[in-house]
């Protein structure tokens, strides 16, 4: 019994990481209806940037975030204004194809720069530290990750509903042309949204790199986990995305408990079940 509750707790904490994968996806889909196939590869890019920063400056990965986050945000803004803004429109194929192309380019650029060897970010003592919670041992890093995920989602929620920037996001999301008429520059708003999304991606990438080893090929899998968390939680609902991440994480750790080869498959099956039973996700945003 205690073993199973242990697996569930681990799954919940893993869900925090998945929610971080998903938050950026959810944000950019909410603001500009863009689904970014390269999202997972950008997470891995952030992990590698974190690696380079820690190695070159000899700093802790958390400190490296001070550099990785603004760099990723800058990449996001330039990418959105330089390339992705041109793909937006009624046709879904251009954004899909262009981000698919980006995905292949990032993957192979990472392969060329860092080789295919798996790497890991070393966080020192925090990597192995653990707490005993009433018989269940919990790693400190997963706990911190989950805490960061909750803070990031609360922060995004605050930006979205309590700031002028968030008002801009919601305005272009509701109607791009009218927002433009009201004096918002939608190209800039989209750029800022992507910058914010990639700042979150930077956090997700560094935390991923501290938790497990990574290599240039695993981006696609991370995109899929983030996507599943978004759909399970319900489109357009950030707290729902956290719940979706948790459900996915728990499904995976329970699956792994049954059979180690079953871990990822169990997560996918949970996703398909939700899709079959509640096609709009568990907590869809109420239509206004």
């Amino acid at each position, binding site marked *: 019994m205690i073993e199973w509750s242990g697996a569930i707790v681990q799954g919940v904490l893993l869900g925090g990481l998945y929610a971080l994968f998903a938050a950026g996806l959810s944000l950019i889909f909410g603001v500009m209806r863009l689904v970014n196939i390269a999202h997972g590869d950008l997470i891995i890019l952030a992990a590698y940037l974190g690696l380079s920063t820690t190695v070159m400056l000899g700093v802790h990965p958390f400190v490296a975030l001070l550099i990785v986050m603004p760099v990723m945000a800058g990449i996001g803004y330039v990418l959105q204004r330089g390339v992705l803004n041109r793909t937006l429109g009624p046709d879904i*194929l251009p954004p899909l194809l262009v981000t698919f192309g980006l995905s292949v380019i990032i993957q192979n650029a990472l392969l060329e720069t860092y080789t295919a060897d798996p790497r890991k970010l070393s966080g020192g003592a925090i990597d192995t530290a653990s707490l005993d919670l009433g018989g269940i041992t919990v790693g400190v890093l997963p706990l911190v990750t989950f805490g960061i995920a909750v803070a990031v989602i609360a922060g995004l929620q605050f930006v979205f509903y309590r700031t002028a920037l968030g008002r801009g996001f919601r305005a272009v999301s509701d109607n791009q042309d009218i927002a433009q008429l009201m004096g918002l520059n939608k190209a800039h708003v989209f750029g800022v949204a992507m910058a914010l999304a990639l700042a979150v991606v930077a956090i997700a990438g560094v935390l991923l790199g501290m938790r497990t080893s990574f290599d240039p090929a695993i981006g696609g899998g991370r995109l899929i986990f983030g996507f599943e968390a978004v759909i399970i939680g319900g489109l357009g609902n950030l707290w729902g995305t956290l719940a979706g991440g948790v459900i996915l994480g728990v499904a995976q750790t329970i699956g792994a408990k049954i059979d180690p080869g079953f871990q990822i498959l169990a997560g996918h099956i949970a996703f398909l079940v939700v899709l079959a039973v509640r096609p709009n996700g568990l907590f869809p945003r109420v239509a206004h």
Partner: protein
Amino acid sequence: MSGPTVSRSTRASRVAMIIGFVGLIVLIAAPWWAGRADLRLMGEIYLYLSLACLWNLMAGYAGLVSVGQQAYVGFGGYMLFALSIFGGLNPVVAILLGGVLAAIISVPVAALMFRLKGAYFAIGTWVMAEVFRLSFAQIQPLGGGSGTSLPVAIVKELGAKKAAREATSYWLALGAAVAVLLAVYLLLRSRRGLALTAIRDSEVAASGLGIDIWRTKLEVYVVTSAFTAIIGGLIFLQKLRISPDAAFSVNDWTAFVIFIVVIGGIGTLEGPIIGTLLFFALREVLADFGTIYLMVLGAVAIVVMLKAPKGVWGLIRERFDLELFPLSYRVRTKDD
């Protein structure tokens, strides 16, 4: 005196048909004039051409932008191995049966995936392909995660000698490509094709004209899945070895195929043909550069999508009003 007439064929399309027919005869005779390496390469080209045509039918006409067709490539490959090793079937029969099974399995998959719209459908199909990959990796008799090889006894059913086997494998690939091209062409010329073209141009208008969009899309999805599985079977009949990662590779069976279609020109029959030729030309030139080649390919696809979204064939068509496969109707007056 006769007034304006409506016709589909043009002089260019008639010439293209004759050249295509002569070219086909030359290609059928390839085992007698081409070397072994060339034969292999040409076989691969035919199979990629088939995948591109099928993806184009789905994405370019039915609006089903899937990034998960590797599910059916891998499924078809695994069915070849499973049915010939454990069912004792002839490899060709196993491949065809694999296509039938893929059609059956694609119906519930579609029922689930069609709940997702647009780009979410795309990623949903990718999840489905991952489910296929992880499931086949669990099947120990087929080698689990590390895969298995096709036993020599089964390979020999294609021909006792190596040269005969290679020729058979080549003709199967060529036959498949011709069959796929012909099937897509005839489908597009039929009443259903008209419905599909209407859906391509405007879903709302098509639905207003009484076209059952959901059903039409389902039919396209099932048919392309079945054919994709058959092509998958042929791909792994050439490779003679299968593993989950190779069979369900998103890069090999979907990314490249999408790039081919987009670079060539989506939503046309000529596009995938031009795209395939360009793809292999680029590959032969840049093959030594490995990762650089893939980055160039990705960049070319992005530039084409941004600058010329109708692809290379779209540019040619706009410039010269050319159509090699007579699909559209043209009104002619006596003066023409």
